[in-house]
């Protein structure tokens, strides 16, 4: 530390209710790690939070260019947080391209930290900038902190004897250290993480820790920042918490389901963004007896899971939209042979390859109807990253109880977004009873349980239960191949009735906010955050608004029709062209209005609020 200072500079510490910070830079700059580290530290501190990682599909687009920009945003607060935030209080931009792409979201007078070392002529040209924003007054409306991140990091690490490339890769931790100082956060969590992460490379442990410490000390030693901020811990309900992403919660949820059912979990999967992390995570849980099979394609992924379900395991397959399209025929097979199976679709922008790393909700109708003939499948959708855990359990429970394939519709935003999650007590987990057919006397493969219409799960290896199943139409009860017209209609109706009957397990909806009034918002999936925040805000303005967030999309809750009738108007915001809207209008003949955003990005709270205002004008 410099010896010139005689004491710490006098600064003001301001307490805020919440703040939104965004790290952005080149995809090689480690912005996702930086953001996750800030998130973990903030979570451990006790703030409520929501994150939005935003990264390109390309592994490394050319350095410094606009398509290569990667960002990570987190909103943290001393009260409930529902979204990653509409606009940003503090933006950390590692190069001109990141600045150009992200500046529009920075609040007026917001904090802007730039890496001064990356604003040369070449850097500006790569970002297609014609003038230097540091000189052309375009940044005058912000609190600008141009910092020589590269030079300062090099100076801090000069004694380590590392090459420049390795040293420069630590500059994100320098920036992280600055942010920790700015928001009065401890370095401890990230220090521990660095040690763990680079355990096999002690030089990198030293380098990253030094860089982060140097960033923190730099702020303390210079008078760059006049104010630091304090966001006190949130008043979450008592319990032990951890930070969790949607994909991670799904993976753990299926392990929990396997334990509760007392059956091994078999995941058949083919790598696809943004679902692959579930495969990665489950492949590490061999201690739980989890079998993961990285199949040769999407079709083998689902059909192997069907084979495993036939064998008596919990069959699971995970994918995204293009993979769902490929699995279509096999889903029909699962419907016909009535075996339990869970299909997770982590939706992304489409059609075709579309926007692999961006979020969307446009696979709902595919999940509902995307199979040949009449092939109904129950559909569940988690509302938040933490809810993914509970949805995994519920999907498995329904699949086994009713002997049906079940589709879970998550999306890229839930998959990669994170929130504090209250760790459940094991006693809170639902039971998943399993009964394999054992009795050969009068055994009929398609004799149904009168309450659930489920057929028996008769697994190979059970003496006396030898029987044949397949995709050809079955005779009712016997399961023999049968092409008779009336039998076919009966079987089509039975399969539909069975899925419709799951409604007995679907809780009635209870609208959040007002139970009747001016406007009902019906939504599903990851729009939960912005819709909740917008409804809360607009109710404070005096509007009478209710919010129904559907976790069960097929079958829909019994009382939904009644609820729809209690409000003057119905609004259905979706990240698609109006798919739930179409279902609601068809099923309930309700004149609901859609609000659609198809930009690969979640709704902002303000967007929903504007729409509400427009409708209630």
């Amino acid at each position: 530390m410099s010896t010139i200072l005689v004491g710490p500079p006098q600064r003001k510490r301001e307490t805020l209710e919440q703040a939104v910070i965004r790290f952005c830079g080149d995809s090689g700059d480690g912005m996702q790690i930086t953001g996750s580290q800030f998130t973990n530290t903030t979570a451990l501190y006790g703030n409520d939070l929501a994150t939005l990682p935003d990264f390109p599909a390309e592994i490394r687009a050319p350095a410094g260019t606009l398509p290569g920009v990667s960002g990570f945003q987190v909103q943290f607060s001393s009260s409930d947080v529902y979204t990653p935030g509409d606009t940003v209080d503090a933006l950390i931009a590692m190069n001109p391209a990141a600045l150009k792409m992200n500046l529009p979201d920075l609040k007026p007078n917001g904090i802007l930290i730039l890496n001064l070392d990356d604003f040369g002529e070449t850097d500006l040209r790569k970002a297609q900038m014609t003038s230097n924003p540091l000189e052309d007054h375009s940044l005058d409306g912000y609190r600008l902190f141009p910092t020589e991140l590269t030079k300062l990091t090099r100076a801090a690490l000069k004694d380590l004897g590392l090459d420049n490339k390795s040293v420069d890769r630590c500059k994100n931790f320098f920036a992280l250290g600055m942010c920790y100082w700015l928001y009065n956060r401890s370095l401890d969590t990230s220090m521990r993480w660095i040690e763990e992460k680079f355990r096999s490379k002690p030089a990198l442990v030293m380098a990253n820790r030094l860089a982060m410490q140097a960033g923190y000390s730099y702020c303390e030693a210079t008078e760059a920042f006049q104010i630091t901020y304090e966001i006190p811990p949130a008043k979450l309900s008592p319990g032990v918490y951890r930070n969790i992403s949607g994909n991670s919660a799904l993976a753990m949820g299926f392990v929990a389901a396997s334990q509760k059912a007392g059956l091994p979990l078999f995941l058949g999967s083919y790598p696809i963004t943004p679902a692959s992390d579930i495969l990665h995570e489950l492949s590490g849980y061999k201690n739980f007896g989890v079998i993961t099979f990285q199949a040769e394609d999407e079709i083998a992924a689902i059909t192997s899971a069907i084979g495993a379900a036939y064998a008596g395991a919990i069959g699971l397959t995970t994918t995204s939209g293009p993979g769902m399209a490929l699995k279509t025929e096999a889903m029909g097979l699962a419907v016909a042979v009535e075996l339990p199976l869970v299909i997770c679709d982590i939706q992304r922008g489409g059609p075709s390859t579309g926007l692999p790393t961006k979020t969307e909700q446009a696979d709902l109708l595919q999940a509902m109807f995307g199979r040949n003939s009449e092939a109904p499948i129950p559909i569940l959708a988690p509302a938040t990253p933490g809810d993914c855990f509970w949805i995994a359990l519920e999907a498995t429970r329904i699949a086994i109880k009713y002997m049906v394939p079940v589709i879970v519709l998550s999306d890229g935003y839930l998959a990669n977004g994170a929130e504090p999650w209250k760790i459940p007590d094991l006693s809170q987990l639902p039971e998943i009873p399993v009964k394999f057919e054992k009795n050969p006397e009068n055994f009929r493969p398609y004799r149904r349980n009168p309450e659930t219409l489920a057929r028996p799960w008769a697994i190979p290896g059970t003496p006396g239960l030898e029987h044949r199943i397949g995709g050809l139409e079955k005779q009712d009860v016997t399961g023999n191949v049968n092409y008779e017209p009336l039998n076919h209609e009966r079987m089509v109706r039975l399969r539909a009735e069975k899925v419709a009957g799951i409604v007995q397990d679907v809780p009635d909806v209870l609208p959040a906010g007002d139970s009747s009034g001016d406007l009902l918002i019906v939504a599903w999936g990851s729009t939960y955050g912005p819709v909740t925040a917008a409804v809360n805000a607009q109710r404070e303005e005096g509007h009478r608004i209710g919010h129904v967030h559907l976790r069960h999309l097929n079958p829909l809750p019994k009382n939904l029709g009644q609820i729809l009738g209690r409000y003057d108007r119905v609004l259905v915001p979706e990240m698609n062209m109006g798919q739930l809207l179409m279902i609601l209008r068809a099923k309930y003949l309700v004149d609901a209005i859609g609000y659609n955003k198809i930009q690969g990005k979640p709704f902002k709270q303000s967007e929903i609020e504007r729409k509400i205002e427009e409708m209630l004008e």
Partner: protein
Amino acid sequence: MTTATLPVYTKKDFQTDQEIRWCPGCGDYAILSAVQSVFPELGIPREKFVIISGIGCSSRFPYYMNTFGFHTIHGRAPAVATGLKVARPDLEVWVVTGDGDSLSIGGNHTIHMLRRNVGLKVMMFNNRIYGLTKGQYSPTSEIGKKTKSTPYGTADRPFNPISLAIGAEATFVARSVDVFQQHLKDTLRKAAAHKGSAYVEILQNCNIFNDHAWESLTEKDARSEHVLQLEDGKPMIFGKNHDKGIRLNGFELEVVQLGNGITEKDLLVHDERHPRPSYAFLLAHMEQRPGFPTPIGVLRAWEDVPRYEDVISEQIREVQENCGKGDLGKLLGAGDTWEVRA
């Protein structure tokens, strides 16, 4: 269950009451009969047998076998069977498929099942035609073949299924013929005894859409001239008078006439356990050359590769032994946590 308590099965125990819906005269009947004769001999409880099929005439097979059976979707039987076998290595899983199902729509699953060496026995009925869809050419149809979908003849070069299987690193590859009952049963027994993936091509006659496809091999007078019956450890001899043989000349095979100084000792002696696939590859390609016979029997039976499902089970066992069985409470509470007090 031990063999001591195993019921004594007969062929009848493996027959079902379902009406068989193959065309009269179809080669599939002979194959069904051979399988129903061999299964009772294998010393495996009936409930452990599972037959998985895809789509096509051959894939109706499970309905006629009184075992567990699953008639799946087109081409996907190896993938369904892989999931089943990995989840339940104790089961005896057989896959029934055809040239269209296995080599066209299901080609990808076939090669990946073989390279993984999943413990599945595959019977691929090759009749060189699409029967169930009524007469289009298949991936094994000879080039130039006129069919419903190729009125001017096919332009596709056909697959050699044996060669494809060897190329996919199959550890057991064999060929038999529907009407050679004893040979077929013997081949199926050998396939059953193999631990890893066993791929058996069964030349089968479709008397409706491609009758006489294998006539040059099955017709009584021609058969000994055109078929080379491979027997492990025996020299390769064929011909009505047992007077022709296969000799290795450099990297080439040649047909030689015995006599005039050429004796059995000069002939290639079949070694089904040859460690290198190039050996079986040479055999697989001989039939495509003029004057050469078509080899039947076991071309390759290599046991030195672990079964896929065993590797998977072993990995799980090892992790559980080293790290202990998973504790759900610990899993949920892993990583950085914090407590919020009331």
